[in-house]
């Protein structure tokens, strides 16, 4: 910082500031971001000019991508508005998707119910009560055919939140497309396929790390030649943040997960530039607007460096961090649910000012139940208003150059590197998870945050301040409790009408293939799916070969 500014600052502190502080002290001694990072009173050019602009910030569409992955960003094309949806039966979800596409949504995002996510059929005893609750129930190819009935798979891109059994659901999707006459190289979409964050934060794992990583490699390899437009993984910080992490922890642990996937894939002989361009990310958008924007910028910069320096990627695409964003579910309150619309608006701005590639906005009633059609529409309209009316899309990375934002970006980057390096020292993410390190760090942050809310140190409007007596809104969405029975009946029909001999042959072949760690399982899973083997049957064959993961808890 030039001497003149430095001297002027001292003078300002002595005179103007001092006078005011004496009469009107500030509201608190220490100001912090939503993630508890200390914030200074003002930021000055000194902070901004540390390091070289061209090296650290540069131009959009160029390394290190701090300002964005495309040179024109939203001037060229808006982000994809993609509302995560799905509940009940395939029929019900199918009509919700058609509704959303009619409302101007540009991509589909499929929510599966928990039995599907954990590889159990709807009639399995452990599925009791859970069928169709948090997403759609998919038991076999039959359900998947219904789910996409009348939706042309060469026209939409589809994101599927599926992890442990991702290979199976992807196989089903490919087969449905084929039946529609759409070839594999035409379909576009994403599978989440991020098992590490399941162990860390989300909990829908099935197999232990080693075979899970193998399945992921199988998908990378298969898609790089067969399904080239498919995003094979969505490395997710969203759930890490929902579990209570800070912004720094969110990107640090997500990137550490990414490093583990890349290292694994290279380890089995895949060429980094062959698969890295199809890696995508998924982040949270929380309430602290500027901290969130800085977070996305720092994450892009770190990933570019990781890919270039650690993994010697050559293609630009391999170094670009492209990401989907969802507004923070955990920030929604059951109290005064209308306030959630405003929270989601701020979070939408954060994601857009941070340069997201696609966005899901939460609905105001989601702290109470699954969203109704009306509240989903308001959530989508929020994105559309930011896109078309707010003006923030007119220029690329509009907040760059703010003294505060650039400082925050640097700070977040530095703290994230500290975590990443520590995890590397522990032997990588799998080791860090098994030691419980990552889970413990997140739990401690979550505990501190909750304590601060309870003490009133952190204000949550409508919850610990500005509360009112209220009645809950009527007309919340309810999933039919008889759904489990309906789905079980459909499943029975599938089992009665398929060629059971063929099904058991394909399942047996899959089991055999699983024994040899060198074999790619995708073709075997495709055959099993085609013969209408159920998700539970396929998963059980693999459970038998791979074993099951058990939670490593640290309290």
């Amino acid at each position: 910082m030039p001497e003149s500014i430095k001297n002027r600052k001292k003078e300002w502190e002595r005179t103007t500031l001092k006078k005011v502080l004496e009469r009107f002290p500030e509201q608190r001694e220490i100001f912090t971001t939503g993630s508890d990072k200390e914030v200074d009173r003002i930021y000055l050019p000194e902070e901004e000019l540390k390091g070289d602009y061209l090296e650290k910030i540069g131009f959009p569409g160029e390394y290190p991508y701090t300002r964005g992955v495309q040179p024109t960003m939203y001037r060229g094309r808006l982000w994809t508005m993609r509302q995560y949806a799905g509940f009940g039966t395939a029929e019900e979800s199918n009509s919700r998707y058609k509704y959303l596409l009619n409302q101007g949504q540009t991509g589909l995002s499929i929510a599966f119910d928990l039995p599907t996510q954990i590889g159990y059929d709807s009639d399995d005893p452990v599925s009791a009560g859970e069928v169709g609750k948090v997403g759609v129930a998919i038991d076999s190819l039959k359900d998947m055919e219904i789910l996409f009935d009348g939706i042309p798979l060469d026209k939409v891109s589809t994101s599927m939140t599926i992890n442990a059994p991702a290979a199976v659901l992807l196989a089903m999707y490919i087969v449905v497309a084929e039946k529609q006459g759409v070839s594999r190289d035409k379909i576009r979409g994403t599978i989440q396929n991020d098992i590490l964050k399941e162990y860390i934060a989300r909990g829908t794992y099935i197999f232990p790390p080693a075979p899970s990583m193998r399945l992921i490699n199988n998908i990378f390899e298969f898609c790089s030649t067969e399904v080239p437009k498919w995003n094979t993984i969505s490395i997710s910080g969203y759930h890490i943040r929902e579990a209570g992490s800070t912004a720094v922890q969110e990107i640090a642990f997500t990137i550490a997960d990414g490093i583990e996937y890349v290292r694994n894939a290279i380890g089995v002989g895949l060429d980094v530039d062959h698969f890295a361009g199809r890696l995508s990310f998924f982040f949270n958008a929380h309430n602290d607007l500027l901290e969130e924007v800085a977070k996305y910028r720092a994450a892009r910069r770190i990933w570019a460096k990781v890919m270039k320096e650690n993994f010697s990627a050559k293609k630009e695409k391999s170094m670009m961090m492209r990401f989907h964003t969802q507004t923070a579910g955990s920030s929604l309150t059951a109290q005064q649910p209308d306030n959630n619309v405003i929270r989601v608006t701020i979070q939408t701005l954060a994601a857009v000012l941070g340069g997201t590639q696609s966005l899901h906005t939460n609905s105001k009633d989601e702290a109470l139940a699954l969203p109704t059609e009306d509240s989903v529409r308001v959530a989508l309209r929020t994105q559309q208003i930011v896109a078309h009316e707010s003006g923030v899309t007119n220029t690329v990375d509009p907040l760059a150059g703010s003294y505060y934002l650039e400082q925050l970006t640097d700070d977040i980057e530095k703290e994230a590197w500290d975590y990443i390096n520590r995890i590397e020292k522990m032997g990588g993410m799998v080791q860090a998870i098994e030691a419980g390190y990552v889970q413990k760090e997140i739990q401690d942050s979550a505990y501190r945050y909750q304590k601060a809310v309870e003490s009133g140190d952190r204000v949550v409007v409508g919850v610990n301040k500005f509360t009112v007596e209220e009645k809950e809104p009527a007309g919340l969405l309810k999933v039919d409790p008889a759904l489990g029975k309906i789905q079980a009946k459909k499943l029975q029909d599938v089992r009665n009408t398929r060629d059971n001999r063929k099904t058991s042959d394909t399942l047996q072949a899959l089991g055999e293939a699983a024994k040899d760690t060198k074999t790619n399982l995708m073709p075997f899973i495709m055959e099993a799916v085609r013969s209408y083997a159920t998700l539970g049957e396929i998963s059980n064959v693999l459970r038998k070969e791979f074993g099951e993961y058990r939670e490593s808890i640290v309290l």
Partner: protein
Amino acid sequence: MSEKIRIEIAKPGLDGHDRGAKYIARALKDAGYEVIYTGIRQTPESIVATAIQEDVDFVGLSLLSGAHNELFPRVVELLKEQDAGDIIVFGGGVIPEEDLDFLKTHGIQAIFRPGTPISDVIAFIESTRKGHAA
């Protein structure tokens, strides 16, 4: 040495959102209780077996998937079947207001929804505990 209140905190069903359950477990420990934490994906059967073996005074259930109407009453039912109906069951999670009556009539003695301060949970434990001693 005096008697300690023992509380089982469990997650029935399949959802893995254990942030709330872990917070409650830790906060109750800090309030001086002995908390037995069983982790995610517990069946009503394993929750009840745990409650009995651990001789707990309370069972706290946390669920965010919406399967509470099926799973919470099942826990109460199994406790009664196994002659342990005196163990008090409470719950928490994403639970719509309209389900509260149903759960109450099925033996769930309190439901703590998002945003409830831990002091409410402690007050509930202390009042029902005294009620039982009297």
